[in-house]
């Protein structure tokens, strides 16, 4: 498959509070993500997963290294890349529908047209009846769906997701995982999915990248060659999970 995203020697350091020294967060990451791949990244809390996504999204500059998207350098706010924030980051003064359509709005799509498009997402994402609800009154799962729809409506090639289901209860988490797989299988965009749940990473991903403790290096990359729909109790899946746990325990 075609290479979509190429990270070369990505290093990130942050200035330490109240001193001149730098704290290393990401250390020399190399990786290749293919077009249409579901790419999971797991790693312990604070290892720099969010930082990595922010760099790919162009919100943060890498201290060293470069990122190529289809062969050319990524720009500051690249239309080809969308990010779903860990904290949703919905605009509180906009209703669910208005949040979903904003990407089209700022790109000058006429009102009637963007409404229609946004309503398609409302239906697909099970948000009927909540079109005119403000984020404050939505449940966590619904906020997450609005956030994903808001990102997808502009058809980015690469969708970055930062622990999107971290705050959901286990039932809605499983529902959302399957829902996301459906959405992805229909559109086949590249997904870079950050999580600290090993189960989730293996169940969802074509590939799983395991990051170590800070400063993070790539510990190992796993290919999950199990066809979908997958059985969560699939022995191969469970075995991979054990190997990743073992890897983390050694770190």
């Amino acid at each position, binding site marked *: 498959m075609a290479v979509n995203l190429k990270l070369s020697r990505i290093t990130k350091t942050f200035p330490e509070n109240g001193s001149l020294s730098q704290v290393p967060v990401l250390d020399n990451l190399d990786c290749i993500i293919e077009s249409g791949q579901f790419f999971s990244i797991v790693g312990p809390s604070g290892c720099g997963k969010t930082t990595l996504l922010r760099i790919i*999204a*162009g*919100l943060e500059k890498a201290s060293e290294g470069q990122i190529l998207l289809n062969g050319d350098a990524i720009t*500051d*706010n*690249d*239309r080809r*890349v*969308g*990010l779903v*924030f860990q*904290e949703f*980051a*919905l*605009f*509180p*003064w*906009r209703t669910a529908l208005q949040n979903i359509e*904003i*990407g089209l*709005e*700022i*790109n000058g799509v006429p009102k009637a047209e963007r409404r229609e498009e946004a309503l398609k997402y409302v239906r697909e994402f099970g948000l009927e009846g909540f079109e005119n609800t*403000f*984020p*404050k009154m939505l449940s966590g799962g619904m906020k997450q769906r609005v956030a994903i729809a*808001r*990102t997808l409506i*502009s058809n980015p090639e690469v969708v970055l997701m930062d622990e999107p289901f971290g705050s959901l209860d286990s039932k809605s988490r499983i529902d959302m995982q399957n829902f996301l797989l459906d959405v992805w299988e229909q559109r086949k965009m590249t997904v870079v999915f950050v999580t600290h749940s090993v189960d989730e990473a293996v169940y969802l991903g074509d590939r799983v990248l395991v990051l170590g403790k800070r400063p993070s290096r790539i510990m190992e990359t796993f290919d999950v060659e199990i066809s979908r729909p997958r059985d969560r109790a699939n022995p191969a899946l469970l075995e991979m999970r054990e190997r990743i746990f073992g890897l983390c325990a050694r770190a």
Partner: protein
Amino acid sequence: MRGKRLIPPLVAIAVWQIITTVGGVPSYKLPSPLQVLGGLKDLAVVGLPPGHLLHTHALYSLKRVFLGYSLAVSVGIPLGIAVGWSRRVRFVVEPFIELLRPIPPLAWIPIAILWFGIGIKSAAFIIFLGAFFPILLNTSAGVLAVDPLLIEAMRTLNGKPRDIIFKVLIPGSIPSIITGMRIGVGLGWMTLVAAEFSGVKQGYGLGYMIMTARDIQRPDEILAGMFFIGVAGFVIDGSLRLLEKSLIKWR
């Protein structure tokens, strides 16, 4: 519930009526509520000086406030947004704010008269000064308090600086802007009456009216005028509160 809230003021008015009729408080110091009501009627029907009716005084005052206040709103809000948005603008403007803000608006009266003469321009200028700083400061504080994550969300949605200003910073700081507008109109109204006391007058105006009532020893008309000024201020604030309610449904 609503009715109950009226009980304390009604009791107070009754006590007031009793001490002024049978309690020995002389009416040239404190007229009774009924006398004040009579004063109000005189102001409205006979006028003070005769022929200068209450509603004309009120219209002149409102016109001055409207002029000064609209100026304060139309300069204060855009400047406040610029100060909140741009570090450079903040650097230039902030020292002037710090320098000018502690000067009470009324201290500007002499120089205002020198610049603009006695009349509506001076009055509007003084009201402008009273309303301008709270509007400016609340607006810039509101912009600075907008969650940076929402700005980043707009950037990842491919938002340009214009979108960040008009679709994130302004809607996000509306509550704060309206607070500033409410404080500003209150201060403008207070400043007006004081300005009308001290020479910025044209033969009409509520401040001028109650000063005239003092000159001719009509405490009932003084109190009636004060009461009217209070009610007018309350109505103005109430209409801004309605605006607030209709604009900030999302909170």
